[in-house]
């Protein structure tokens, strides 16, 4: 299983490129996508989610173009949780997830079972019958993740899934994502580099529309240790160094 971006460029008509020759290959596990605001993360996510077509280049999942004739079929392999989402607040967690599963192509009579499985993965099986409006922010976030994975996608795209959560909730989310990543490619867009330390197998950093880092967490740590900055962890220092320095690191 491999997600591959080859020479991906995207630009709005008459404007400078938002993405410029993106080349990355991502395998199962958690991959962190780092970058400052405006770096192009959201645009890349929307391309990977097949919401947008790249201006040039190709994105493949197991060798099949995601923007070609197989797009409809490949969309069933994608689970996408936007940064901002809402749930049917008057409906139960299970019904929300079952509905998301149905929307992603799961047969109607299998949706409830798929929802139960997904809720178990995010440790919410006990709250399956609770109205989502009565759940905490962290629990709602996990319901959202369950929605994204209920149809058992091969590619899971999560945009800032831990934003706004307290540390304990973030730890929970990390554990759940690590479990999900055992069987899928999980691409995680985040500003919180510490989230990546415990679960990411790969880190891709984008700045100014270009990939400036594509390697392991340890490589990012090493970069930080060699440019230690007061008050920041090694990972954070490495990230800051990426944004400030001209260095381009790829595995």
């Amino acid at each position, binding site marked *: 299983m491999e997600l591959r971006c080859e020479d991906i460029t995207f630009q709005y008509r008459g404007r400078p490129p938002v993405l410029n020759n993106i080349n990355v290959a991502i395998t199962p596990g958690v991959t962190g996508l780092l970058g400052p605001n405006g770096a192009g993360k959201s645009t890349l996510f*929307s391309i990977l*989610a*097949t*919401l*947008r*077509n790249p201006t040039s280049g190709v994105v493949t999942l197991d060798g099949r173009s995601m923007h070609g004739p197989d797009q*409809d*079929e490949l*969309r*069933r*392999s*994608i*689970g*996408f*949780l*936007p940064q901002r*989402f*809402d*749930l*049917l607040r008057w*409906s139960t967690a299970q*019904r*929300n997830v*079952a*509905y*998301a*599963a*149905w*929307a*992603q*192509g*799961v*047969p*109607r*009579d*299998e*949706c409830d079972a*798929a929802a139960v499985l997904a809720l178990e993965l995010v440790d919410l099986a006990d709250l399956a019958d609770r109205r989502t409006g009565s759940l905490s922010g962290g629990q709602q976030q996990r*319901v*959202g993740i369950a*929605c*994204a*994975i209920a*149809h*058992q*996608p*091969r590619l899971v795209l999560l945009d800032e899934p831990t934003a706004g959560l307290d540390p304990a909730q973030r730890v929970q989310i990390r554990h759940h994502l690590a479990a*999900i990543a*055992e*069987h*899928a490619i999980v691409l995680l867009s985040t500003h919180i580099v510490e989230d990546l330390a415990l679960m990411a197998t790969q880190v891709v950093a984008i700045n100014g529309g270009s990939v400036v880092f594509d390697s392991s967490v340890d490589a990012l740590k090493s970069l930080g240790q060699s440019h230690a900055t007061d008050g920041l962890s090694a990972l954070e220092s490495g990230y800051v160094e990426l944004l400030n320095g001209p260095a381009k690191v790829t595995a």
Partner: protein
Amino acid sequence: MTATATARSGSFAPIKPITLGVIATFVGFVTWTFSSGSLPAWLPPLWSDTNAISRDSVLLVGPIVAGAGAWIGGWRHTLAIGPTPARGWTAIMSAQLRPLATAVVAGHVLGLTPAVVNAAANTTGGSANPLTIVSGLAAILAVTCLGYLLGTIWSSRIAPVVASIAVFPAIIGPILLGEAVTSSETNGTSGASVYGVALNWMDVTVGIGRYETRTGAAIRLALFAALAGAAAWVAVRSAGRRDTQPGWLAALPMLAPAAIAVAVLLVQPSLVGRSTGTGCDRVPESQVCVPDDVAEALPPIARGATTIIDQFGFGAATSDIAAGTPLSDLVSFTYFSDSPVRAESEASISTARLIGGELACFTAAFSRGGDDALNAGGSLELSYALASELSYAIASRSPADQADVDAAMFSFDTGTARALAALSDTELRTFLDQHSAELAGCTLKSVRQ
């Protein structure tokens, strides 16, 4: 997490059945409420009342339905199902809209049922106008889809309110356009989208009837169907591929109803032209328009009026009734003896109206059928108006209750009534005798001609 779901089957509507039931009940209640106001006054023609309810109740039901559509439409961009669900937005929108549409249609039909049952029980012929009923349903579906579309634009918290207000022009627009186009069809009456046969009798054009024309209903049906289709199409198209199609381009289909409206206005003369003509005889400055089917109803009216006059005389008829003679006794002398009687008042004015109603409704409507006859040219209203004019002419000769008669003449101030009232008894009887054949033969001419 190894298998990827690929099968597509079944539908999933996140809206609960009980919620749909509440919506259906509410829509039905509002529709019924709209019709119940006219229940006490449900004198014939009953089918036309039913048709009017189907059309006009949308004005009340539409904003409610649009609000519900917007509420559900708001789910699309708030659910955690991502922007590119594999099942596709068409299937998802269908799953969301179909239960709602079913509920509102069911509610509308349920709300109409009392009117239909009443009409069916009290008429021996005719039916609801299918085109009017269908256009009413199309209107409900259109505002549902439009509300849904608006719900996809705004959040589900404000969209229902916005949609409830914003759809009102979409509801009233097609109705007004239909009225505007068919107003010339009504030959100078103020009937707007209703059918009015212009009877030129004694050189006076009388506005008769308020009935939906097929043209008006067809225009509404086309516009509402186009609106529903355009709104649904835009809602689906605007959900994906945002980079390949600018938003304004995706909204272009919303111009379809406007294009149809322009087309309707452009071909307006031919639309109107097709529905006049039959049985009409053009005379200077106006028409004598008595469709062939109407002619069948006219001889009994003329005979009935003549019988009344023969039995009671012009003055005696209403004065006897005013003194307490049951109307059933009166009509037993006439052609309409087997008809039910609704003597609501013994005042001469009411009596005169009832005579007119008896003359018209129990001959034209009950014996020949409501809208079938109406679609053929408005015989019911024509008959009613004709009989009413005669009745008032008779009533005006009553020595009793002259004040009431004068008041009635004031409220029923048509040229024909005044012309008839100005005739002497002998002249009126002579007029009826002379023109019975013309009425029956659809050859009534201007007196002056």
